[in-house]
């Protein structure tokens, strides 16, 4: 039930969808959501992976090591990918702006590869997975402070129908 509440909150934009905030939601939200006819995102939809599991994980400075939180997110991605075998995945690796351009391309590749290895080790077929590094070419957030850099040091799991 708590998951469902969180889902609806995501859809109607009442609150952020980050894990850990579910418990703060009230049952009222569920009731009002149903009354206004809003549907939950079906598990089979790639949107579920983006909104409910999280399509991205984040890295420390100059690191491609997977944090505990990252492995939790990726484990849920594994569950989704194993249940939805009709999707292929491109893992995008990214870096923040605090490194040289070419080094960051290699660093982004190393981050994408860390995700790829985790998915394979946990049972996702390697044939469904490709990686691409964007280095520091495509920041998610434009500011030049750690609050943005920490969101830009990321690996994004992008799905496409095969």
């Amino acid at each position, binding site marked *: 039930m708590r998951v469902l509440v969180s889902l609806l909150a995501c859809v109607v934009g009442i609150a952020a969808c980050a894990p850990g905030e579910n418990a703060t939601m009230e049952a009222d939200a569920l009731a009002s959501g149903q009354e206004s006819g809003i549907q939950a995102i079906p598990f089979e939809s790639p949107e579920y992976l983006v909104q409910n599991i999280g399509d991205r994980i984040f890295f420390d400075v100059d690191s491609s090591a997977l944090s505990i939180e990252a492995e939790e997110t990726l484990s849920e991605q594994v569950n989704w990918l194993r249940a939805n075998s009709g999707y292929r995945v491109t893992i995008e690796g990214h870096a923040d702006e605090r490194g040289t351009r*070419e080094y960051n391309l290699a660093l982004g590749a190393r981050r994408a590869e860390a995700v790829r290895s985790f998915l394979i080790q946990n049972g996702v077929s390697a044939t469904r997975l490709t990686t691409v590094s964007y280095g520091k070419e495509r*920041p998610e957030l434009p500011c030049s402070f750690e609050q943005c850099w920490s969101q830009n040091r990321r690996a994004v799991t992008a799905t496409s129908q095969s």
Partner: protein
Amino acid sequence: MRVTRVPKFLITFLFTSVVLTAGWSTAGRAQDDPLRLEILEGVIAALPMAAPTFVAETPQSQAMANNITSVLIADLVGSGLFREIPRQAHIGRITNFDAPVQFAEWRAINAEVLITGSVSLLSGSQETNGEIVVKFRVYDIVAGINLGKGMQYRARSSDWRRVAHKIGDQVYNRVTGEDGYFDSRIVFVSEFGKKTERTKRLTIMDYDGANVQYLTSGRDIVIAPRFSPDSSEIIYTSFATGKPAVVTMNINERKPRVLWSIPDMTFSPRFSPDGGRVLISRTRGANTDIYEINLATRRATRLTTNPGIDTAPVYSPDGERIAFESDRGRSPQLYVMDLDELKPRRISFGGGSYGTPVWSPRGDYIAFTKRLDGAFHIGVMRVDGSGERLLTRSFLDEGPTWSPNGRVLVFFREERGEAGGPALYSVDLTGRNLKRLSTPGYASDPNWSRLR
């Protein structure tokens, strides 16, 4: 800088396919002590120079004479080695290029160097791209002698800026004894749009920002272009195939071709000094290594085997060694190795992390990007790692490239935040004369050609 009187100097005549050169002697009497400016530890005082507008031999060539003189002066003053004595201070007037120079008139305004010239349109007009003939002489006012022989350049009207740059390179050479760098180009990446979705276009321009041409449409991300030694080709990294791949492009044909069609990411290409080989980085899994591709045999040789990231390679001017960036020791540092030994030796020990090594054309220095305590620097060190000097400092300075004569570095500097974007800057090897270059939009990843 030191101005000394030395007994000998070289006269260099240039021969190129574009510009016809014919030397012609002057009646100038050679003395034993012509002017020689030695570039040592930075410019203390720029040399006072008078450059009256070149004489227009025909009314139709007046505009051309004005323009050529302006570009010549901009080159010389921009080098930081010369200071222009304003026209309104001149006492002497050059109305006839062949008339004897009255040295006293130029001494009176404390000029040490005088440049005179003339421009004539041989045939047609500037509009029909007719031929021009540009003559010049350089005088050492203090010694009262000609500095080298008079020369003339014959060229199409459309090449008038190159003629001005070539005269500038001649003056630079005659006064310093070193080659100049004015008749050269810069290839770089123009950037437009929001920081989170920049459009990037491969762009080429003269070293002074003139004659901008776009080589790609902006559809694909492009990174870090480099000239081939003869400047006919550009090699760079493109996302055109969906992931980074090294691409070559002939500047005239503009048809990009993937260098090595493999599933792995390839990037950071650099030509060998003879143009026959290319260094690249290749990523397999989490590992990035440096490979050398022989362009004639199409064979690739793996040069590094460390599991870390090895990238940003560069050849030494003799083509026998390479420098590169590696995080094999945890933080990115600079390494040098002989190509016949393949034993990398770390050369950067100054604290912080280092990247983008670039070997000076003279072979004596390696320029680099350094990150230390939250700031970025452009710096230089000797090839053995000694004598490190940081020339710049900002939020983000990156990607130095050497002038053809190894005296100046161009790099890019990026401003902070959402509204910030990169721009090209130049700085002398001494750390002086920091200037922003004019580009149409944001600009990054510069690479300076050799002299044309």
